[in-house]
């Protein structure tokens, strides 16, 4: 189990992580989500003792990472930026890490095979593609058979097959009872992988709940109504407390009333409906909505006219 307690990290006058607390429980994949620059990587570096927090504390099984005697056997980590000497072979890279923890050569061979680098293990890591580099990083994370994993953007640079592989790997690692923390800036990727979500924006906690709950809570329901009597129906529904917007096609987009209630109200007034349907916003929309006040580099989202 990994715990962050009131973590704060400042770089100069910029606060990268601000009073952040959350727990990564064993047995499930916890998605760590936030737009670029939200502080995900910084938080992970704080968890792993690479950076020192200005306030707060991060612990693994109750112990700060820096105090772990054989940390690779407790926490496996994949960092976003590569952490491999380019002149060294994949095998030797893993071997020199293994030797610091008393891990044998057999285990090195095992993880090399597990991540599918068997055929290139003796080649210089500098020649690896982004995807192979990610696999090597994951091999290093798995080396000590750790109870917790911290993976920063593991699907970066992977092809679809690789993405599926890492997804299944994370799920199976969690199913074995490990605590898995995986960061991403892609909401949809997390929706299919994570059981639990920790969402941050500008270094602050935005949401900490199960993925289901997050979807439930944040994807607002709206009802699309197509009717020749748009103006009258809109007046009527507004009178009942609904929020009504008229789309470019003259259709109504209604929130705050169930579809069945809208249909009943229309029938009572004798208004004709051509179409009525309930829509859920996409998860990506919800994520953007949630973090929009917290986006570090806002280029302004180009609006796709009418399409939602």
């Amino acid at each position, binding site marked *: *189990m990994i*715990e962050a307690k009131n973590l704060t990290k400042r770089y100069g006058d910029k606060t990268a992580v601000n009073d952040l607390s959350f*727990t990564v*429980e*064993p*047995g499930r994949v916890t998605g760590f989500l936030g737009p670029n620059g939200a502080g995900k990587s910084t938080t992970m*570096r704080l968890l*792993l*003792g*690479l*950076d*020192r927090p200005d306030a707060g504390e991060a612990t693994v099984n109750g112990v700060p*990472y*820096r*105090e*772990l*005697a*054989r*940390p*690779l*056997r*407790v926490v496996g*980590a994949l*960092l976003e*930026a*590569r*952490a*491999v*000497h*380019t*002149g*060294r*072979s994949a095998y*030797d*890279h893993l*071997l*020199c*890490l293994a*030797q*610091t*923890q*008393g891990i044998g050569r057999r285990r090195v061979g095992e993880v090399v095979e597990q991540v599918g680098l068997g055929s290139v293990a003796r080649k210089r890591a500098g020649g690896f593609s982004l995807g192979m580099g990610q696999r090597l990083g994951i091999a*290093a994370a798995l080396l*000590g*058979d*750790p*109870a917790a994993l911290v993976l920063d953007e593991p699907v970066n640079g992977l092809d679809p097959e690789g993405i599926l592989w890492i997804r299944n790997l994370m799920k199976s690692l969690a199913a*074995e*009872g*490990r605590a898995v923390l995986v960061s991403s800036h892609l909401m949809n990727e997390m929706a299919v992988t994570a059981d639990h979500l920790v969402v941050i924006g500008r270094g602050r906690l935005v949401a900490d709940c199960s993925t289901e709950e997050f979807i439930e809570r944040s994807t607002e329901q709206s009802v699309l109504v197509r009717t020749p009597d748009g103006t009258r129906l809109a007046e009527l529904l507004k009178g009942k407390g609904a929020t009504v917007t008229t789309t470019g096609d003259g259709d109504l987009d209604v929130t705050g009333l169930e579809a069945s209630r809208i249909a009943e109200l229309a029938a009572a007034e004798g208004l004709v409906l051509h179409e009525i349907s309930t829509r859920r916003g996409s998860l990506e929309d919800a994520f953007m909505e949630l973090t929009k006040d917290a986006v570090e580099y806002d280029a302004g989202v180009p609006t796709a006219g009418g399409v939602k």
Partner: protein
Amino acid sequence: MTTTTVPVPQAASAAQERPAGFAGLMLSEWTKIRSVRSTVWSLAVLVVLTLVFTGLFMKMGIANWDETNAAQRAEMRTDPTGTILGSGILLSQLAVCVLGVMAIASEYSTGMIRASLLAVPRRVPVLAAKSAVFGLLVLVVGEVTAFGSFFVGAPILDGKAPVALGDAGVVRAVVGCGLYLALLGLFALAVGAIVRHTAAAITTVVGFVLVITPMAGMLPGSVGEHIHAWLPTEAGFMITQQHARAGDLLGPWEGLGVLALWTAALMAVAAVQLRRRDA
């Protein structure tokens, strides 16, 4: 805080209490050094080139013997060992400086340092193990180079400035030369650990050895002389002299001790920084 009862793979709960052994760290650092081909090649080339240049310089010295001024001739006669070790070894010095810097700065430039520190979050043992392994390696290579240079140079000088390993001060000078190279390598490694950028660190070290030190020799007066004598490479190289020369401010072991102090001070700074700074 909730406690779940899912069976957690705790491979290492027993191994947890004990920190990873220093022997393991040294083994790891040895793997790091031997698995980067450029390091291995550089060391091999260093030895060969040093011997070749020592031979060339000595042959040139003998060929020009008759045109050489009397003072220089006298110096070569009284200190043939210093003459031999003061030629090709200068090349080894530079290579050792570059390798020392690279041993740690390359970890920063490639990002490997993060993997190293994740494995050893107490950090300072990484620097200690790296220094120990690199220092020992350079010591071995340095002794090979020093003895090799002596055995290449001595027969060439034989006619004009005869010297044998059994002569007073010779073994000390030759063995000391290897020690000097090892200390210099550690000096460079410490600078690499502090500066962290390969190019900047190499410039610093080589600039210090090649530019600052000779320039300090031109400082006027006794203060200038003392500053010059106490600079790391100037002081450390005293060990390679068979006999003291007129005007020497430090003895051979004193000089090497001064270099060792410089190195220890820089290592201490490097260790404190490693602990304090974000990686």
